[in-house]
């Protein structure tokens, strides 16, 4: 367990220290160092869990489901920190952001990492809520970092919508605690995941059904499920790009993680009632709606970061749909999809950040000819988008293929809408991508200093997962599937 405490302590201490460091260069290096240390410790923890199996204490919990998200979170935190160093330096040089605000940025970056890791590793449903709300509070000032009218508007919307949404989740948590108090031997443990799982079958189905709806709406707001997604494109497009990368790659995952854990409880409680699959149906409905609506919205975007945030909604919808179908295959596909989407999408946001520096704007109409001006950025964007659109041999293809198979197995008719949605999304992405990458170079466009190493690492990883899922990873995901559905796929 020591590693787990260290994982939480590192970013927490980092946030405090970075709040005090005035030297910008030093701060960005410390930020990088803390992120790297967190990643190393999380890998050590993962190796330990692989060897010794799940661990838990009163407060914290590590099992196959959250350990893979813990490693993913600290990994993306690290690569984003690598990218953010030159990127934010460039932002500072152009005068968009004062040194004082940069201090806030670094400190809040680590605070955000802390809330994410806490939400994943806590054994307590209430602390999970506190951490997810804390993530909003840590990022809201970062969304408005540039203080443009648009940024302020985006941050206000983000604050209010997520605040109201997450309040519903708290009401759901209260209801769940209410149900648990009547069955759990020690009422104080009524929010403890492990205790709740042991007693899932005894929880009152009526109360749990109601609680699930509130919890789904609450955490679903954070996942960006349509029609609760309004904050997401704004917050992603107006905040600094490293923030978009971690919001899209981490926050959405963590919120979905919460939803899936609660679904496990609800399924247990409703198993003997009249609607045993209510939770799954709700997830499928929300997921499919998000997937289709976001795919259509891709076509009318004018801002490159808005474009990719709608693509995030689309993919989170797909993963939610997968969890809704349930069963070993659907769950495996959804878990894999969460993984590959995070890795790919954060690499795309990193590339997009560089591309908008080259063009000096985020407007798609004015980003042209990236391959000519700076081949690394142009090709990076092209491969990234090809990966996210689901082209083989990238990992997203694998997960979408598995998801389609699961759909054909249990809901053959829905395959049509899934395929249509995939084609719509593909067209939506490529009609914007083509001119940005190949178009004629505007006069005076020059290359900027970039660091494409994180992008290369991410894309190679996705390629690796797509060509041949490493045995340990498949095994790992399979253990998570066993935990969620009760039976393994492999």
């Amino acid at each position, binding site marked *: 367990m020591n590693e787990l405490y260290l994982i939480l302590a590192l970013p927490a201490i980092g946030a405090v220290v970075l709040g005090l460091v005035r030297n910008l260069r030093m701060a960005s290096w410390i930020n990088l160092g803390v992120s790297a240390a967190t990643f190393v410790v999380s890998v050590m923890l993962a190796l330990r869990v692989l060897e010794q199996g799940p661990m838990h204490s009163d407060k914290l919990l590590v099992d196959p489901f959250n350990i893979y998200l813990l490693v993913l979170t600290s990994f993306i935190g690290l690569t984003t920190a690598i990218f953010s160093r030159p990127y934010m330096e460039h932002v500072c040089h152009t005068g968009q952001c004062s040194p004082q605000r940069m201090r806030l940025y670094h400190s809040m970056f680590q605070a955000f990492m802390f809330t994410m890791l806490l939400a994943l590793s806590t054994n*307590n449903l*209430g602390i999970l809520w506190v951490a997810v*709300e804390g993530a909003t509070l840590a990022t809201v000032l970062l969304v*408005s970092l540039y203080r443009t009218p648009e940024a*302020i508007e985006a941050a206000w919307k983000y*604050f209010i919508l997520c605040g109201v949404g997450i309040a519903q989740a708290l*009401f759901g948590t209260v209801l769940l605690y209410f149900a648990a108090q009547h069955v759990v031997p020690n009422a104080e443990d009524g929010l403890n995941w492990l205790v709740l799982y042991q007693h899932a079958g005894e929880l009152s189905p009526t109360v749990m059904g109601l609680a699930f709806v509130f919890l789904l709406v609450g955490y679903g707001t954070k996942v960006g499920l349509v029609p609760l997604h309004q904050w997401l494109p704004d917050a992603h497009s107006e905040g600094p790009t490293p923030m978009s990368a971690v919001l899209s790659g981490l926050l959405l995952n963590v919120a979905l993680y919460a939803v899936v854990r609660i679904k496990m409880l609800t399924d247990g409680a409703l198993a003997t009632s009249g609607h045993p699959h209510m939770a799954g149906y709700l997830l499928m409905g929300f997921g499919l709606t998000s997937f289709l609506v976001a795919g259509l919205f891709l076509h009318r975007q004018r801002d490159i970061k808005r474009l990719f945030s709608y693509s995030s909604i689309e993919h989170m919808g797909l993963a939610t749909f997968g969890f809704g179908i349930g069963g070993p295959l659907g769950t495996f596909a959804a878990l894999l999809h969460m993984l590959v989407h995070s890795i790919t999408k954060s690499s795309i946001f990193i590339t997009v950040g560089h591309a908008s520096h080259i063009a000096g704007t985020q407007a798609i109409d004015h980003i042209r000819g990236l391959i000519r001006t700076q081949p690394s950025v142009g090709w990076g964007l092209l491969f990234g988008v090809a990966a996210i659109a689901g082209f083989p041999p990238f990992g997203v293809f694998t997960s979408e293929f598995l998801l389609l198979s699961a759909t054909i197995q249990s809901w053959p008719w829905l395959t049509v809408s899934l395929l249509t949605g995939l084609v719509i999304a593909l067209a939506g992405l490529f009609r914007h991508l083509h001119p940005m990458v190949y178009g004629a170079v505007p006069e005076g466009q020059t290359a900027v200093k970039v660091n494409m190493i994180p992008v290369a690492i991410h894309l190679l990883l996705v390629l690796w997962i797509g060509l041949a899922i490493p045995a340990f990873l498949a095994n790992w995901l399979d253990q998570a599937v066993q935990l969620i559905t009760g039976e393994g796929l492999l």
Partner: protein
Amino acid sequence: MNLMHLSLLEQTMLVLSALALFLSFALLAQARLTTMVHLFAWQGGLLALLTAVVATVGGAHHLYISALLTLSLKALLIPWMLHRLIRRLQLERHQERLERQALVMMSGAALVIFSYWVVLPVARLELADTRNVVSLSLGIIQLGMLLMVVRRQAVAQVIGFMSMENGLFLAAVAATQGMPLVVELGIAFDVLVAAVLFGVFFFHIRESIDSLDVDLLTRLSEAEQEKLASEAEGDA
């Protein structure tokens, strides 16, 4: 449920939560910001009192701590912060024009009935004597949301947000005799940080649009984006 069978303290509890709901309606009808802050403070005070009553009824001693916490945070500290902000923003005399007052009040009443209907299956379980309070608290949450929807003034929206938190707190106290202490402390911390951040935002918004009317924040809506884009094309 027969009210006469409840003990005096339990009846007190019901009365207090009903009063809290009444204050939510009063917030909905109040146009002056300073008065709204006062009403909000009273709601916080009622909740603190109610928590103390529940602590006495159920013998849950950790609830005395959360009663104290609620009193200091929701009845004193946050209202004081809001007051100071209103003074610094020179909004003491600000009076918002409330539109469709009757309609808003009627939908408020409808929302409360809706909350009763939602909680009905839970109430039928007869798991606790105080289930009635759960529907009242859901009503307070819904009214807080309604307040945020109908008001255009940023400060008023924040008061709606905070009164929603009050409803959540009431639900936790009444249905489950409060959350575990560490969760409750975490929630209180989040609420406090949120209150501070809202204060920061008031100044940012005013700097950016020279007003606190959040209806003017429309640059990022999908429709507006389309309009801006077509204007840009027209210029070209």
